[in-house]
């Protein structure tokens, strides 16, 4: 499978996520879109890791493995981020009964 396909695919997903971030106002959805972006990245990483594996497997049996491990760490971090993020959103909801990202703009200029 040519690597370009994966590149374009995950770029597409990435940008779709970005568009989501740009267009939605619901904090949770925005956050989900960010997760989408992360997943796009993951996909690409895996693809690359396999590419490098294909290239250097002869020299180094574990070539490309680091890419997949990185994905693993991304997931870890994502999980942590989600826990904190959702906590923040919930706190916000408690205080203002809304998860609209534009609802609060006392801090400006």
């Amino acid at each position, binding site marked *: 499978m040519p690597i370009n396909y994966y590149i374009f695919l995950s770029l597409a997903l990435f940008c779709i996520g*970005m568009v989501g*971030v*740009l267009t939605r106002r619901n904090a949770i959805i925005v956050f989900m879109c960010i997760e989408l972006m992360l997943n796009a990245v993951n996909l690409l990483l895996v693809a690359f890791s396999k590419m490098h594996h294909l290239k250097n497997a002869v020299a180094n049996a574990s070539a490309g493995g680091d890419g997949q491990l990185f994905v693993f760490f991304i997931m870890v971090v994502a999980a942590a981020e989600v826990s904190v993020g959702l906590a923040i959103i919930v706190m916000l909801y408690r205080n203002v009964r809304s998860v609209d*990202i*534009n609802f609060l*703009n006392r801090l*400006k*200029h």
Partner: protein
Amino acid sequence: MQNSLQIAWLVPFFPLLGFLIIGLGRKYLSKSLTGVIGSGTVFLSLLVSVWIFFLVKNENVHVAAYFNFISVDKLVIPFAFQVDALSSLFLLIITGVGFLIHVYSVSYMQQEAKEHFARYFSYLNLFIFSMLLLVMGSNFVILFIGWEGVGLCSYLLIGYWFKDNGNNYAARKAFIMNRIGDLAFLVAIFWIISKTGAVNFNEVFAVAQGQVEGKSFSANDITIITLLLFFGACGKSAQIPLYTWLPDAMAGPTPVSALIHAATMVTAGIYMIARCNILYSMSDVTQDIIMIIGLATAILAATIALKQNDIKKILAYSTVSQLGYMFLALGVGAYSAAVFHVMTHAFFKALLFLGSGSVIHAMNGEQDIRNMGGLSKKLKITYFTFLIGCLAIAGIPPFSGFFSKDAILLSVFEKNPVIYAIALSGALLTAFYMFRLLFTTFYGSFRGTEEQKSHLHESPVAMTIPLIILAVLSILGGIVGIPEVFMHNGEKLKVFLSPVIAVSTEHSVSHSTEYLLMGLSTGLVLVAILFAWNKYRNYKKITEKGFGKLLENKWYVDELYDKLVVNPILKFAGFLNNVFEKQVVEGLVNGVGRFVNYSSRQFRLMQSGQVGNYVLLMVVSILLLLVFQFYLKK
């Protein structure tokens, strides 16, 4: 064995000493003591001057150098005095007349308060000092120092009664007008330095005469330098276009007018040009210009003098016109004649001023001749001396004025008869207005107030003695310059000055013509006097109209100057101050500040406080930067 003239420094030293003593001790010295010190110091330097004079007479010329005033790079300006015929002569005039006027002042200024009396004498001494510096300086810079010094003193003395702002304005005018001339003088000095790298008279003249290899003046240099110097002289010696300050300068005390604005300071210009005669003789252009200006000034001032009513103003204008004659003489190259006239003029003009001073003294402060008349009975000495003065200035033989003026006219005639004719007419005008003054003041009936009439009296001895002495000098002063035609080896002055001023030996005019001219001028002058006699023997008031009014208002020259020069400058300055500075210069600076503030207010709006917009902005800028990197950047 150093030259005995080395102690020439004594001459200016005494007045300086007097200045310091009086100036510092003015609180403590009594008036009489002040007077004694003031006059005494001048008298001492008079003695020294006489001694110097006789030394010089025995061909002892000396440049007494004391220390280096400035020595930078190759330029060396020594503080040195040049003692030769010319300067020694001027020394005599200055110290002599100066001494007399000091003595005169002692009683003239009696009614002043102690401090002010002292202030007066300290200024006077300072003036003598600067004047001596001026004539003794052996290079242009020292000369210039004295030059500015006398200007300063005249400023101080004109504004002596500083409570009256009129005097202050007059003083300021005098100083600034002089300053304009001085600027020209300075530029001339710079020019000389840039060409010769020296300022000493001897060196500069040597270069001019081509005795120094490597350095030389081009013809243009000479012309420009001489013209600049002459312009400086115009300021000091009140020639067109810078003459208007002198009449106003009469605001000062009368003795001051006599000393500074008649006898000495105003002749500094003549001295300077005479000193530089070598340069001037090399530039015909300059000489012609000087001649024309001198002549014009002489006539103009004379015409104005015809219609003035302030006794001192009349004398002032006559001074201007006499100075004009001297410049005329310089213009035609008769330097010694000019110097001769300086001398005689110093005598009789000082006499006239002091006389007028005594009149004013008698009329306690009155200066308008229309309110005088018939004073001859009360003020006998004043009257006679004044008469002598008038005869002298009018040029009646054998009074001194006759010889000096005759010498000038003769040399003018040699140059060009037409000029001679004009100059002669000027002389007639002089005779006329002087005798108008004399008759209106001393003849006819008294026109002043009763109070003044009762107050009329002859001045005290301290004032009359100087009058008499000056009168005698005005009579006999001519002897030193009696022309060849009257007595063998006459013109002693010319001979005496010959080391400084080259003498043109050949006479173009025959003795017969000379007699003729003398007769002519004398005759005409007598006619003019008679005319004045029957017009003003008993004066009656008439209001001037037409041409008379024009003359009475001095051809409106002052007004003209205000319109053309003073007001435009003030307006322009005002514009710069109120508009340009505020709007443009300040405006630019503050504008920057305002711009920063403005853009700050705009930038703040980017910080809209909405996450969505932030993300959008970030994405857009990412986009732009990527585009730049991948597509725009080469």
